[in-house]
Structure formats: C-alpha cells, structure tokens
C-alpha cells in the first residue's frame, strides 16, 4: 500500500513554547489513524500542520508524496506561494471541533461553495454531488436551512459533507465530537465510520476511545509534544506499555 501521509521529526514552536518536539507518523492510503492524548499534548497542532494551517519549524511532512507547504529545488527548500498552498489544501479535507460552517449560507451553499468557487466546477454537477453527499450524511431534508437552524450534530455532518465535496484524498478530523451534546456524538461518529469503511484515509484527533478502538487501524498516543506510543488499538488501548498512556487511559475509560 502506498503512503498517504508521512511526517518526519516534525517540530513546531509558538514563540519560545515548543509544542511539537519531533513527531513521526505514517498513514497508508485508506488507513485510519486516531490520535489520542491529553489537552495541550500538541495533537491538534500536529493535525493543523498537515494542511499547513500552521508552519512547521523543522522536519518534513509529505502528503501523497508531495512536501506540504514547501518545494525542494536544488537541495534547497522554497516556500510555496499562497496559491500553491491553496491548491494543495484542495485535496485535504478538514473538519473542525467547532464546525465552522459559513453562517450566512444555506446548508447546500456551504457544501457547494468550494467546488464552485475554488475548482470552478459546473454548478449543476456540484449541486447533484452536494445533494447526494447531504443525503449520505442524513441531511437531505435540511438543504435549504441555515446552519443556525441545525443542531450541533447536524452542523458537524454538514461540515463533513462540505469537506467531502472537494473529493479529498485525505480527511483530517480535529476533535469533531468534542463540542457536541453527548446524545449527538453518535450520529457524527456513524458518518465517520461509514467514511472509513469506504476506504477514506483519515487522521482523527479524538477523545472517543470507543471509536478509536472500533475504527482505527493505528492508534497514536501523544503527550508533551511527542508520540509516546503507537500501534493497533488492541495494543495501545487494551494493553498500553507506557506509564503515561496507562495513566491517560485510566482517566478517560
């Protein structure tokens, strides 16, 4: 299987605060990686580095074989222009903790916006695809509603559909269920399970241990800006080797 994501020795600092201190991760095509860890461990920051929302200070990240945010020419790194970074991001979908739907657009317009404006695809085609995506996440009846009229779980499902409308080869989930009422978590996780079954490559930062156990091919436990432990769910969750992993899991399980 080919590698979709390869992160090597990634470092990231905000001023004098070093958030990532050498993170490595590889995700094969179609693989699902769940990143667990206490808050402040750098897991969200790491995710944001993968689509260059944050610039890394050292190390390198490759998505589908291409360096993220840089181009290597004559053994020297060149920063990519904003336009090239934007083009790279088109194939990387991202779902945020706080949904970040565009409140001034209807659900359908939210999903259609990027394919129409960024990729300049034909409106009718995009519309059909958007409707079928919204149907897939169970929101066919809400296409003309505005985000404020939806529950958190519904909004997050729209956000997933919006990301999928760009036909990404990789999906990043940044704590997608952390801002939801407990009874709404399930519906979002169901959609994500469906995606994983269909072979989408996914990196999921989450606190949902049950989801990680069921869906993940690999579970990564981060703490203090480094990967403490990684392996299959049965290794990391059921039988952790590191003290820090054990301590964390004992609190959340």
């Amino acid at each position, binding site marked *: 299987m080919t590698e979709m994501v390869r992160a090597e020795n990634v470092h990231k600092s905000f001023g004098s605060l070093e958030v990532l201190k050498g993170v490595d991760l590889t995700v094969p095509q179609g693989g699902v990686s769940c990143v667990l860890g206490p808050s402040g461990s750098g897991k969200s920051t790491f995710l944001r580095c993968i*689509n260059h*929302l944050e610039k890394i200070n050292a190390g390198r990240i490759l998505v589908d074989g291409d360096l993220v945010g840089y181009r290597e020419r004559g053994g020297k790194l060149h920063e990519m222009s*904003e*336009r090239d970074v*934007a*083009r790279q*991001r*088109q194939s*990387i*979908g*991202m779902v*945020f903790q*706080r949904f*970040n*739907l*565009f*409140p*001034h*657009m*209807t659900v359908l317009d939210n999903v259609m*916006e*990027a394919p129409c*404006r*960024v*990729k300049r695809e034909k409106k009718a085609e995009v519309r059909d695809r958007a409707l079928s995506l919204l149907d897939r996440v169970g929101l066919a009846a809400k296409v003309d*509603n*505005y*985000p*404020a*009229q939806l529950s958190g779980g519904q909004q997050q499902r729209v*956000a997933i559909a*919006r*990301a999928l409308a*760009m036909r990404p080869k990789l999906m990043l989930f940044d704590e997608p269920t952390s801002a939801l009422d407990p009874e709404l978590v399930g519906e979002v996780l169901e959609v994500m399970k469906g995606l994983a079954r269909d072979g989408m490559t996914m990196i999921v930062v989450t606190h949902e241990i049950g989801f990680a156990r069921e869906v993940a091919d690999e579970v990564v436990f981060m703490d203090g800006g480094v990967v403490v432990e990684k392996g299959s769910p049965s290794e990391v969750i059921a039988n952790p080797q590191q003290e820090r992993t054990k301590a964390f899991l004992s609190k959340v399980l």
Partner: protein
Amino acid sequence: MTQPTETGRARPEAIKAVAVRHPGRWVMIAVLAVLVAMFLHMIFTNDGFRWSFIFSSYAPGKRGVMFTEPVLEGLRGTLLLTLFSMLIGVGLGIVVAVMRLSPNRVLSSVAWVYTWFFRAVPRLVLAVIFGNLNILWSRIGFGLPFDKQIGQLFGIDNFDGQIFSIRSTDLLAGFVAGMIALGLSEAAYMAEIVRAGIQSIDTGQSEAAVALGMSRGQVLRRVVLPQAMRVIVPPTGNEVIAMVKDTSLVAYVPVTGELFFQLQQVEARTFVVLPCLVAALIWYLIICSVLMVIQFFVERHFGKGYGAAGKARQRLRDIQVEQGGRITATGEGTP
C-alpha cells in the same frame, strides 16, 4: 379547561395573575403627552413658521420655498455629493482596512497614517483646503513620476513625461473638490468601521475557508466580508446620515449647488429667516427617513442565517416532530 397530556396527568389551568403595576410609568407618560401637545399646538398656531411660505408660495407667483427650482437643484447636489463621497469612502475604506490588517508592516503603517491624518483634520478645514489646492499645482496629470528630474539627469530641459493632464482649476474646484475632500475623510472613518467588522468574525471562519483551498481574496469576499457586513452596516448607516448633513460644509469650497446654501440664498433675498431654516430641516428629515428605511432592508439582507425568527420557527417544527406532528411541504406542522 383541562386537557389530558401524554403523561396521563391533567394539565392545570393557565396562570391568571394580577400584573405588577407601574405608577411611575403612567406619570411619565402623562408628562410627555402634555409636552407633545404643547409642541404641536405651537407648531400649528405660531405665525412665525409661515407654513404657506414653506409649502405653498414664498412670493407672488412662486412655489413654496421647499420646492423652488434652486432649492431642488441644491437638494439634487446634496444627494449626489452624499452618494459619490460615500462611494469613495466605502471603497477606499475597505482598501485601507484590509491594508491595516495586513501582516506587512509597511502596508499597515501607511493605512494607520492615513486614518490618523484624515480623522485628525476637521471636514470643514479639509473642504477649504481642497478648494484651494490648485495653488500647489497648475496642472494635474498622469504619467512618468519625477519626469522633470529624470529629464535633468539626462540633460534635457523641460522633459515632459505626462501622458494626460488637466488644469487643476478645472478639476479641483467646486463639486469635485468637495466630493474628494468628503470622500477621503469618510474613508478614514469607514476604514475603522470595516476593520472592526472584519475583526469581529471568528478566525475559525477564515480557517475553514482556507482549509477548503480558497485564496485570501476569496476568503475575504465570500466568507469574511458578507458576515462582517452585519457589524459594518449599522455604523455605516450613521455615516451616510452624517454625510448628508456634512455636505453643507462644501459651501466653503465653495460649492453652491447644495441644499442648505440655496436656502440661505433665499433667506438673504427675502429676509425671512426661520421658515427657510425650517424648510432645510424638513428636507434633511425626509432624506434621513428614507435612508433609514433603506438601512432596514440592507440589514435584513445581511442578517440572513442569523434571524431569531428563523430559529424560533425551526424550534417550533422540532417540537411538533417530537410530539408526533406531521410536517407538510410548507413546513407548517399540524399537531
């Protein structure tokens, strides 16, 4: 009336309680009513207003002063001046605001200096200065910058690199000078309003847009500004209304085709002071009332997706669904 509910328990009768009394409010209302009555009485009975002078005829064979030809011309001038200076103000204001928020220090400093200067100088002073700017230049043109100096460098006297130029007394006089002065001043205020609007939008919005592959311009045009408009429109309405009134300052440029100036001319000819002032006041009231109606519709347009009404309707539907109601095509539920 009691109705059985799902739990099987009878629903108690709705509460019928005696409302709290507010005697203070009633006293206040009485006082205001008397004051309003006194005011209206004065308006209708005091001969000093000379309503016929204002509305029907201010001199034998003439229309009321509000509707005479020069005053209507002045009204047109006031409206056009407001429109054009606000267009300059809003357009340039957005540019200055975006520059001010730029990560580039030079751009943001230039924007800062611009707002500093034009907010510091009174509009009246600015209007007079622009009326006299032709003292600085005899011609204003477009072409090679520093053409004279470059010419001298190569030993050519009077080298002319201008592609197009115009006598400054033709360009920078009257209406155009007033329009530019008011527009540049307005841009400084609009820049601050637009900046506040842009900064009020959650960074998650531009992050989500950028993550979808949108360019910086697209993020601004499609995501940030449309939302920022909710914050920008109300103070901009203020600015438009203030501008209607500030157009009277261009009399000092001087511009004569302006409402207040024209009414003062009538005043000077007829020695009827107060009715002319009242006529001006009435026109300003009418213009601003129309503008407020326009503002209402603009606000409603940019409030899409935020309306409390929309949310309430949705909640109602959800409740009906929970109670086993049927949703019809129009969204009206039948319990």
